[in-house]
């Protein structure tokens, strides 16, 4: 579900970015000239700076992921509301509506929106209501309690309140849509993964059946029909190879860190069960990730030699990032030779006295030119 929360966060960050852009662009383009136009320019600038500080604190906390608790609203909202009154006190009498030149009255709502970004909707609405009531107080104090004055207050208050609330609600809806879309996508991805896994399991099962068919079924058929003599060395070799392959087949889907060694152990185990002493050495170096077909090509010569071994064998693995060398030395007769069944694995056999040496070397494929 982490992808769902990531998408949701991305939607949230996008809406927050838009709100911050509005706050600071408006504060620079509208509020600064309005502050400098006040009769007491220094006081106007001080008000503008105080507003800037409140906006920066709110942005910093919200951008760092905070603002869920009451600390930020408690710190920022009272000064924001007080700022409306302070601005009204510094403005000269005007023919316009008393709230028209009060830039703090309109801009304060946007900072409140940032400060209350992670709080509930009703707190934003409450801010709008209190802000409008303070505006009403200013209108009354300015003695403009007539139909035109109150009507303008309602229009201004409505604009000041409704736009941030609309953005807040819109953002929440967007986040919910994003969360829903991401959840759907995650569910689809899960279904696709499950389908792929099921297909992989089915393919692996089909391949295993095929291999069992190749390795064992023909042999069992020949034994059952009496076409082969179990005392023949060649038959015994075929049976031993089949047994080792079956043991390898049983472990090759195990989820283990060193699959190649795990499979070699299964091959060695098959030989040990008929009394061969197998010295399977711990690997030298880290074995890189190999494909199943590559592991097959590496273990196949070992299976063949171990099946032909009389009494003892030593199996070793030396590897690094570029190559894996699996070798066996055993008192065994040379088995029927077969070419490696994978292009990246080279196999060598050599007989010296009564010892047979076989080595399978996997080399990292060179990149295509």
């Amino acid at each position: 579900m982490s992808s769902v929360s990531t998408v949701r966060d991305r939607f949230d960050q996008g809406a927050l970015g838009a709100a911050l852009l509005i706050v600071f662009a408006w504060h620079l383009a509208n509020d600064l000239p309005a502050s400098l136009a006040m009769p007491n320019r220094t006081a106007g600038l001080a008000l503008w700076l105080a507003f800037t500080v409140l906006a920066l604190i709110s942005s910093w906390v919200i951008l760092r992921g905070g603002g869920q608790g009451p600390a930020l609203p408690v710190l920022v909202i009272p000064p924001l509301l007080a700022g409306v009154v302070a601005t009204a006190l510094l403005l000269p009498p005007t023919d316009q509506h008393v709230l028209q030149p009060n830039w703090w009255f309109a801009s304060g709502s946007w900072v409140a929106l940032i400060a209350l970004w992670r709080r509930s909707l009703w707190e934003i609405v409450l801010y709008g209501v209190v802000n409008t009531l303070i505006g009403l107080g200013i209108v009354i104090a300015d003695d403009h309690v007539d139909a035109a004055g109150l009507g303008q207050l309602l229009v201004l208050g409505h604009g000041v309140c409704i736009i941030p609330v609309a953005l807040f609600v819109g953002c929440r809806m967007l986040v919910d849509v994003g969360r829903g879309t991401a959840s759907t996508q995650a569910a689809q991805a899960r279904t696709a993964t499950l389908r792929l896994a099921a297909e992989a399991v089915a393919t692996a099962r089909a391949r295993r059946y095929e291999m069992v068919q190749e390795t064992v079924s023909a042999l069992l058929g020949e034994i059952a029909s009496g076409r082969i003599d179990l005392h023949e060395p060649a038959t015994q070799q075929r049976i031993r190879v089949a047994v080792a392959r079956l043991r390898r087949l049983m472990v090759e889907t195990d989820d283990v860190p060193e699959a190649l060694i795990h499979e070699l152990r299964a091959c060695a185990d098959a030989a040990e069960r008929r009394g061969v002493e197998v010295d399977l050495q711990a690997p030298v170096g880290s074995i890189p990730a190999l494909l199943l077909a590559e592991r097959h090509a590496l273990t196949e010569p070992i299976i063949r030699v171990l099946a032909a071994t009389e009494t003892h064998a030593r199996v070793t693995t030396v590897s690094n990032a570029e190559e894996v060398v699996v070798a066996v030395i055993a008192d065994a007769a040379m088995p029927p030779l077969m070419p490696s069944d994978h292009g990246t694995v080279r196999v060598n056999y050599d007989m010296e006295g009564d010892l047979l040496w076989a080595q399978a070397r996997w080399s990292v494929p060179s990149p295509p030119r």
Partner: protein
Amino acid sequence: MGPGQVERPVTAAIVEDLEVVVEGVRSWVAADPGRRVRVTAVVDTIEALLEGDGRTADVVVLDLDLGRDMVTDRVPELSDLGLRVVVFSVHVKPLVVQAVMDAGACAFLDKRTGKDHFVDTIAAVAKDEPYVTPSMAGGLLQGARLSEREREALVYLFQGMSHESIARRMKKPGGEAISPATVKQYIGRARAKFAAMGRPCASNFALLARCIEDGLIRPDQVDDYRSTPR
């Protein structure tokens, strides 16, 4: 052993708590036609070794499992006392081999294949020769900076080949097989590099001195190897 001196058998102290293993070792020693090794002490603890006659033996053969304890961490102490320690164990994982060799052991013998190498190893270690057993080859492959030929020789040795078999498989540029003496050189040089990069202790110094004397490495190469932190 300097020129003119009479060659005496190498004395060996065995630190082993399994009687059956000691009997096996005695039989291998007795079966050596050259009678190159004489067992002078058999003890079952390191303390008994240090307090008894075994302290003066040419070589100490140490089993890593004594009673319930693994004594891997005592190898540095023994090598610092100037003892030539040959570890004799079933714990043949290359990392374990590398660790005890790093700690100053002169050689590592796999208990399961010790019969083939035991006397040769003890005799070589007593003379500070860079003798490498197949299980040691695994540890050296993990640890030392090796040339391509040294690595190839060690891989074959680790696989279980004799020097003669390795020589047959390693070819000169012209396609001709190299000699077993050259194989011994490659392996000896790899062993010397490992000693030069390991702990500075008496056994490593003696081995390096011997390698320099035999022309396997030059004195200036010792510093070169040691300057690489392990």
